[in-house]
């Protein structure tokens, strides 16, 4: 029998202290312990990107990180991107440009786009496609996803008050 460990993780600005089994994956911690089910589990093999969240300011695949590795860290999930009831410019872009069909890949797409635009506020189409290469859309809606990120890029450059959420 293994020893549980106490971890402290700040998720979307709120600090949580929890006893977890060391083998618990971060995505299961977010979904099952904190009930933040916006982060999805797709392939579960670090290829599809449905589980992307920000950990300490970097996009990561939360199916391939242990919850204990996030101890002391800050996590931002899709739920924390915009204040309650509002939408982040990237979410608005995906809405306006029909950047989703079934929506399963969308939280991961948006979080990957968040890192992309944070590092490169005005990416070219090639840079967007490369930035999202770790995210798979099985509806194959890539054209509109690219348009959504371009739209978000414009929104974020014109918006005087781009929300910068806690945890990042």
């Amino acid at each position, binding site marked *: 029998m293994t020893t549980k460990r106490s971890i402290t993780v700040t998720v979307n600005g709120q600090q949580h202290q929890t006893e977890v089994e*060391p*083998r618990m994956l971060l995505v299961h911690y977010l979904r099952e312990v904190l009930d933040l089910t916006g982060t999805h589990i797709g392939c579960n093999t670090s290829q599809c990107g449905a589980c992307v969240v920000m950990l300490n300011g*970097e996009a990561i695949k939360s199916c*391939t990180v*242990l919850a204990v*590795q996030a101890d002391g860290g800050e996590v931002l999930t899709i739920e924390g991107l915009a204040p309650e009831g509002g939408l982040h410019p990237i979410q608005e872009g995906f809405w306006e440009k029909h950047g989703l069909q079934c929506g399963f890949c969308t939280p991961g797409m948006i979080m990957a786009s968040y890192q*992309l635009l944070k590092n490169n506020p005005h990416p070219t189409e090639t840079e967007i496609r490369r930035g999202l290469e*770790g995210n798979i859309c099985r509806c194959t809606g890539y054209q509109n996803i690219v348009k959504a990120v371009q739209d978000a890029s414009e929104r974020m450059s014109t918006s005087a008050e781009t929300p910068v959420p806690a945890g990042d």
Partner: protein
Amino acid sequence: MSVPAAFDYHPATSVDEAIALLQQYGDEAKLLAGGHSLIPAMKLRLSQPEHLIDIGKISSLSYIREEQDHIVIGGLTTYVQIEQSDLLRKHFPLLPEATSMVGDQQVRNRGTIGGSIAHSDPAADLPGVVLALKAEIVVQGPQGKRTIPADDFFVDTFTTALAPDEILIEFRLPKATGSTGSAYDKLANKASHYAIAGCAAVITRGQDGSCSAASIAITGATVRTIRARAVENALVGKQLSETVIAEAVSHATDGEDMIVDIHGSEEYRRKMAAVVARRAIMRALERI
């Protein structure tokens, strides 16, 4: 649901502490760095360590710096840090180039060079680069540090010269002398981005324009990362025309055991290894 078998978790705050834990738990322990090879293997239960020693937060092992005759890279330096390093771009362009082809942005944020080399997946990109650059690999164990030349490091599939109680701490890359160019090229699996065949090439041209030194490594195609000595021998001393290069790369995997799986037969991999080797050598030449 795919979760690892149960284990005890030991976060180490220093190399000495990690070595002491390795000595304590022996064969039942594994080191965790970025976790992007080990955690997938644990989820598939291909690896079931009873003790996981997390060295991922030892920040003193994360650096890229210049010394007199070497560029040195700490074992826990991430792919993204390598990809973005101006120092590495200037001295060894194939290293950031190969790193930019690993997985995707999220994987590169977490994965480390030390983890990749210690794991020694024959389809990984960096073992070939480390081999072609003739890196000196510094490891530390209970008796202190020792340096292993890259040529002696990759023993077999997933098997290296690293002892069970040692930690890979640093790569020392000797600076190139003379007119040298380098490049990495690969045929990638579309889903995983692992190499079906890859080649790291470092080419030096002498005063008369002929090839004075060549260091060519093959990844992905062979059961372990190898130096393609037959290719190197066929290049050195020659003026590197397209004909000379084409003849040389036809020997890229001579006598080597090949990986055969759903992504490629032996014949296909031998041919693709020659193709990526030609491309890498051509691009290395353009960079001289």
